[in-house]
């Protein structure tokens, strides 16, 4: 690892000022699990790490009216094991459980995972499906970015050079709504997904028609891919097995999957169909049963 200095800003404002001052030379640092790895491989060599851990008020998981808000310093493990998360948005904890290992989740943060914008990120597609909002603070003030606009390319986000991700807001699931995250891996654990699929499906009432749905893929394109055509085929319909099978068949047509050492594009295409189908089925069951 190349040498660097750690700076300890006390506030978000100070962090943004430091970012403005040092530009590309500075990197924001929270859990650091991904960043330190890149630095050890000598692929990234910042001169300054801006350690957010000294900033008050970024480390929380709380309920705010109809939503959950998670601070930038909350670790993946804290979210995974939070009773509040389990009670309000259980699928979030389920998804996080599939990331890396306990040791990584004890240190890595949700915000850090999002800011890395790895195409195989698990939280990214789920947060889009859940209609989360990302609260961003910068020298120009605060703004909110929906996650579908946050991921702009492989490892690239919509954050401006002087902005940081401050918190993540996730609305509670309404009644008769079900959400699920499925990930197809080649190993049982400690594996990145060949395909990840997040579904949130809302029913008008129990056993009613689908009033809204979001289906988002991870791991198959440079950024999470929302399957809006598939969603449109489900919206306003009474969903049954045959409809699910039919729409799932169209799913892979909506994206152009990448090919890498984990899987070919062709296999990914097949898996999109399978997991979109399984994801919708699962979400539907949950919506009917009222479990999230």
């Amino acid at each position, binding site marked *: *690892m*190349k*040498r*660097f*200095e*750690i700076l300890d800003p006390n506030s978000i404002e100070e962090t943004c000022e430091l970012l403005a001052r040092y530009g590309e030379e500075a990197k924001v640092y929270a859990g*650091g*699990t991904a960043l*330190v*790895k890149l*630095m*050890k*491989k000598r692929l990234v060599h910042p001169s300054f*790490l801006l350690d957010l*851990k000294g900033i008050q008020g970024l480390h929380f998981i709380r309920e705010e009216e109809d939503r959950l808000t998670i601070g930038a310093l909350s670790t993946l*493990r804290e979210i995974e094991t939070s009773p509040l998360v389990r009670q309000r948005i259980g699928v979030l904890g389920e998804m996080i*459980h599939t990331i*890396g*290992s*306990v*040791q*990584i989740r*004890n*240190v890595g943060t949700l915000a850090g995972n999002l800011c890395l914008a790895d195409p195989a990120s698990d939280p990214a597609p789920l947060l889009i499906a859940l209609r989360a909002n990302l609260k961003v603070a910068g020298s120009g003030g605060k703004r909110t970015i929906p996650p579908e606009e946050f991921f702009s390319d492989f490892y690239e986000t919509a954050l401006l050079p002087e902005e940081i991700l401050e918190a993540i807001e996730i609305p509670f699931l309404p009644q008769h709504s079900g959400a699920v995250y499925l990930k197809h891996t080649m190993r049982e*654990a*400690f594996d990145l997904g060949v395909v990840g699929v997040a579904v949130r499906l809302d029913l008008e009432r129990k056993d009613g028609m689908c009033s809204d749905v979001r289906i988002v893929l991870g791991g198959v394109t440079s950024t999470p891919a929302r399957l809006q055509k598939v969603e449109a085929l489900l919206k306003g319909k009474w969903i049954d097995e045959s409809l699910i099978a039919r729409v799932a068949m169209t799913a892979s047509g909506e994206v152009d999957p990448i090919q890498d050492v984990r899987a070919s594009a062709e296999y990914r295409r097949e898996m999109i169909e399978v997991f979109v189908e399984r994801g919708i089925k699962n979400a539907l069951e949950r919506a009917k049963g009222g479990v999230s």
Partner: protein
Amino acid sequence: MKRQLELKVNGLGYSLEVDPHRTLLEVIRDDLGLTGTKLGCGGGECGACTVILDGKAVKSCLMLALDARGKEVWTIEGLSRGQALHLLQQAFVERGAIQCGFCTSGMIMASKALLDENPRPSEQEVKDSLAGNLCRCTGYVKIIEAVLSVTNTEKR
């Protein structure tokens, strides 16, 4: 520029001066001479470097030493007192959960963090807690047995 690092390791206080780029693993091994914690892959994938930091298992190869400021670290050396082994160590020894031994301290520390938090885990919970620890020798069968055997004893 070196910075002050105050931390407790295995119950003992240390006051060190370290460069920011050094990992917790390097400081534990090179500065404190506690070589029971191993450097395997160096990329957070094998778990041989697992230590317990403020009650939580972490991979010390991916953590900057300065992140342990004011914290309490436990390594494999802190588990046994004299010749009296910790129950987990005893179980690993007796149940054949050790072959080459390179993964062992990481395995035991990850297991300890689990049992401290959840004294009676299921087999699945044991597996989930050791999901980031590689072993190339044992096929894991005896490691799982060893950890579960400790959960079945009354005192720990």
